[in-house]
């Protein structure tokens, strides 16, 4: 990590943080939701 500049580390942490936070939040909501797809229907 000593090869990374401080600016690069800050940028990486910020962008990774935004992406991980959004993805984990979406999956948390998705997996804890009681609504599901599926089941039969006919047309």
């Amino acid at each position, binding site marked *: 990590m000593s090869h990374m*500049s401080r600016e690069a580390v800050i940028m990486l942490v910020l962008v990774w943080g935004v992406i991980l936070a959004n993805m984990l939040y979406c999956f948390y909501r998705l997996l804890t939701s009681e609504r599901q797809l599926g089941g039969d229907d006919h047309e």
Partner: protein
Amino acid sequence: MAKKERWASRLGLVLAMAGNAVGLGNFLRFPAQAAANGGGAFLIPYLVALLVMGVPLIWVEWAMGRYGGQHGHHSTPGIFDSIGRRPYWKYIGVFGLWSNLIIASFYLYIESWTMAYSAYSLLGGFQFTPPDRFFDNITGNVPNSIWAFSVPGLVMFALCIMINIFILSRGLAAGIELVSKIGMPLLILFAIVIAIRGLLIVPGSEAATAASYNFVDTKAVASPFEGLRFLWEPKFTSLADPKVWLAAAGQIFFTLSIGMGSIHCYASYLREQDDVVLTGSSAAWTNEFCEVILGGSILLPIAVAYLGLQAVQNMTAGGSGFGIGFMTFPTLFQNWGVLAPVAGFLWFGLLFFAAITSSLAMGQPIMSFFQTEFGFSRPKSALAFGAMLLPFAAPVAFLNSRSFFDEFDYWAGTFALVVLATAETVLFAWVFGMDRAWAEIAKGADMRVPRVFYYIIKYVTPVFLIVILIAFTLKPEGKVVIGVDPVTKQVTTEDRGWTPYITGWFGKEKVPGWRWATDGMIGLLLYRDLAVERETLEKQLLPTNPALNSELEQSTRAKLAFLPKLQTLRQIDRGAMVFAFLFFCGLVWYSWRKRAANGTEPPERPKAEKGKTIPKETKR
């Protein structure tokens, strides 16, 4: 009564949609684009484009697809028709069938290479065969020849097409969803293993301080973190460059598979009250995870560790990591000892999973079109897709890649996507009406969409798309002088696209004369790339060229003689693309005519009063 096809689970749908979006570009194009356009600073316009264009368009396409599905349509001609209710919308929707067919014809070819590479890696073949020779062996690539094919390459391509058709014929839940549920976790696992192993490389020069890691590699010339720094160090001056903003918007556009018609198709199998907001967002952020976090941690760090920063900077200057991924990585993995065959297998295996989950999404809209508009069974529509694919896949496999392959990639894989996305945004936000569109997005939503997106979808996204469309269509060369050698007086120039025409007005640089760019729509239409190549080759033949010798003269004349043949091939492939588009238009016209004759046309959509939403949609 026929049982309507549905997705089996929400997680399966998210993985299928994410698989559709996660493709080869996530691992090969993104890191090179980011590195070539300002490193960490590139991520700022990238995230802005994600928020004002990517995510809103994802919701728009999901909502449009679900709406069309309620009206019995699962492909863009029908979906656009059910929303627009003017005859021409269904023909604009034809782009969503046409581009999938054309893209699939070359994308499946690349997919077959990943299969061949992963199998050959596992057998340890790259210990003895250089990757560039292996590439030439499977593509049959011969310089300056219109023919380019090999028997092993054709066998792999045919196998790849058959695998895709077989999976598609099994249906949504038992085919695409099952493959995505297996393929996506494996893709992520393979990528994590390669990324961690790559970041643990310690160059021999640092052995004294890092010997305890046991990954000291005397072949490595730099730390992989140099590669990460190259990718992430923000060069904030690049934010003032319009080229960087366009590159970021383009990357967001292509990474999310927007404007293809595949998202509409997948979403059309939802029920009326199924959520599109949370499910769509989950798929979009999963794609970002695969692209930025995984894709950004493999290609550049490993390449920089073994080749050095300067070499990798040169290799990625064009914004593509394809050469590193296919030509360099198999050799670099040989430095990993006993892990080499496994590493090659994992790398090309993850590229294969990324590709197949995307190629299935290209086949499904065409299959759905035959199923819903012509009443074909699933196996029959899978075969119809295969039959339509063959006349376009064959020239891709048999002819020089600079003809059909490259042309299909640009016209269907780049330009048509922007056209369809612009059309669908105008259709949904302005023709359908933003109030109705907003209500459609919010219907059954598991997550509240902030009100600001109402205005973003209505104003910002269409403007963003129109700017991209104009920028792609009219792109100028923008040649600026960046230096003059004081001794030889040789002038060094750089093509900077739109930048000097925009920043030039603020006195930053001289505005150059207008010439079409070789990679812009008009430039390509006028074969500007071939004209520029001809100029360069003719300059090499001038007697004043000090490097001119008989060998160079012979090869240059061969290249010059090849250019007119290439132009003829391009004229033929453009004719083929126009024919395919008209053929789809004919099929749409016929199926609607048949529908009208049978009296099965959908009822008129009720008009919304301004500011009001209609509580329940008219369903057939």
